[in-house]
């Protein structure tokens, strides 16, 4: 874990309002793994005292990238970041997705910015598998090309049917189960909206699959000091609040208490 002064290498618009921000930040880029996040100080957002957490989409030895969308004042101000701008980055933070083991079938399920950590996971995975993306419409499907280049089985559901299967991503999973082609035990890795994660947890339980979920919580410190970001989990026979930024953001779905 470090604080490093990064430098914007690239900033471009993607589909569906998303943007890609690529930052030169060598020490953190080298150290970060799939599922971990960075805590970024939005430049020129002077009245703001909090950093903003973002999952890593990709990283190499010198730089890393994230995707984001305007949802509030921080992400709005982040759209001003230009090539060459300095940007303070804290990271890597949180726990990684466990790596997929040989003989298992990684089943990645993403929604929204959730494709970011899953893309990073797929890129570093020794085992190939299936990537499913759920979205409201065709224009919001991100990273399709990247997953195909990684030779992953890439499947899409859209709520309006404009691309892939019409419906929700859980329908896509059930459809795939119906096809009966799984020759290995699927292990789910998922990141996306709260409702989607909850549906996936239920589905995984029903099928008896293991599922790793990356949770999203408002954060202050990002390092476990403030207890702002907690998630209720089962820990042995106790139920307690643990920190999404430290013990998470990746949790075993069967530990999560859905409130």
């Amino acid at each position: 874990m470090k604080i490093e002064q990064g430098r914007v290498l690239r900033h471009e618009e993607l589909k569906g309002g998303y943007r890609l921000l690529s930052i030169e930040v060598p020490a953190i880029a080298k150290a970060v793994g799939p599922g971990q996040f960075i805590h970024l100080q939005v430049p020129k957002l002077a009245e703001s005292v909090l950093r903003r957490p973002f999952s890593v989409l990709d990283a190499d030895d010198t730089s890393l990238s994230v995707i984001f969308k305007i949802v509030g004042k921080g992400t709005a101000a982040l759209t001003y970041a230009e090539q060459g701008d300095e940007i303070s980055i804290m990271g890597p933070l949180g726990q990684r997705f466990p790596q997929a083991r040989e003989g298992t079938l990684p089943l990645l399920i993403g929604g929204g910015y959730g494709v970011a950590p899953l893309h990073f996971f797929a890129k570093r995975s020794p085992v190939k598998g299936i990537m499913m993306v759920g979205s409201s419409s065709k224009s919001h499907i991100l990273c399709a090309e990247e997953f195909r280049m990684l030779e992953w089985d890439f499947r899409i559901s859209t709520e309006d049917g404009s691309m892939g299967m019409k419906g929700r991503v859980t329908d896509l999973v059930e459809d795939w189960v119906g096809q009966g082609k799984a020759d290995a035990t699927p292990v789910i890795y998922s990141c996306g909206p709260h409702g989607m994660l909850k549906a996936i947890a239920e589905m995984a339980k029903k099928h008896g699959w293991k599922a790793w979920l990356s949770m999203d919580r408002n954060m202050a410190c990002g390092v476990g000091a403030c207890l702002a970001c907690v998630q209720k989990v089962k820990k042995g026979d106790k139920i307690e609040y643990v920190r999404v930024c430290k013990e998470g953001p990746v949790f075993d779905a069967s530990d999560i208490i859905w409130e």
Partner: protein
Amino acid sequence: MIGKPDIAVKIGAIEMKNPVMVASGTFGYGPEYAGLIDLNRLGAIVVKGISLEPHEGNPTPRIVEVASGIVNAIGLQNPGVAGFVDTYMKFLRGFDTPVIVNIWGRTVEEYAEVAKRLSDVEGVAGLEVNISCPNIKEGGIAFGTDPKMTEEVITAVRKATDLTIIPKLSAAVTDIGQFAKIAENCGSDAISLINSLPSLVIDVGKRKPALANTIGGLTGPAIRPVAVKLVWQAASAVEIPVIGMGGITSGGSALEFIIAGASAVAVGTATFTDPSTVLSVIDGIEAYLIENGLGSIGEIVGSLDLPAAGTPNF
């Protein structure tokens, strides 16, 4: 002036190498930021509030950002006094930095009991007594907003321990000087202020409070002018040292508190923005003393130069 100025301070029996601590609840129990800054450099570490038994805290959301600050309602989640001592004290003893344990309770007896249990723990230098907590025996009124309850709780803690005790006053009172005096009269070694300001943020779309707990506490730069005023008033009312906090982000803003009368300061919310803030605050204070040819921090504590007749009319 030759050499570095003397910035060491003494609060009760606690010897600090500099007047800058980290504020309770914003620095966890020590290990959280240890990978990012050198804990040996801190004047003192004040840990997150500890109660007799483990406490679960509030549901989420627990935090929301506002203009120049945050509003939090963590709900005092903590592992309890035994859990804290077992898990963290060994780690904390590894640094050359005094550890001040922030304590709280729901009854006078709980406060006293926590104080007692921490008294013999090796490495605990002092207790900061958070009195902004609801007294469950008195219908949930915060101890620190009632003069009589404030007196009771501080007296009980004083009896329970020989450690340096530092009541942390509630800012949400009409006359802070009155409460500062009570703390002094009950045998406190110092006082600290301000705690967060009671606040409400509403999610207009949902017509619901933004925090699960409804009410939270405002901290950060937004509260600094209010905090400096209260510290100035409190310091004017008592002889014991005052520890000032509320929105400190730099050496300059820490110096506002010191000039107003604080012998030491604490950095809270700013640590979230940049964990090294506390170090730049120390450096900034030192640089100020050098620039102004001052030999020691003591020379500026309470040095505010007041106009002949300050009208209270504003």
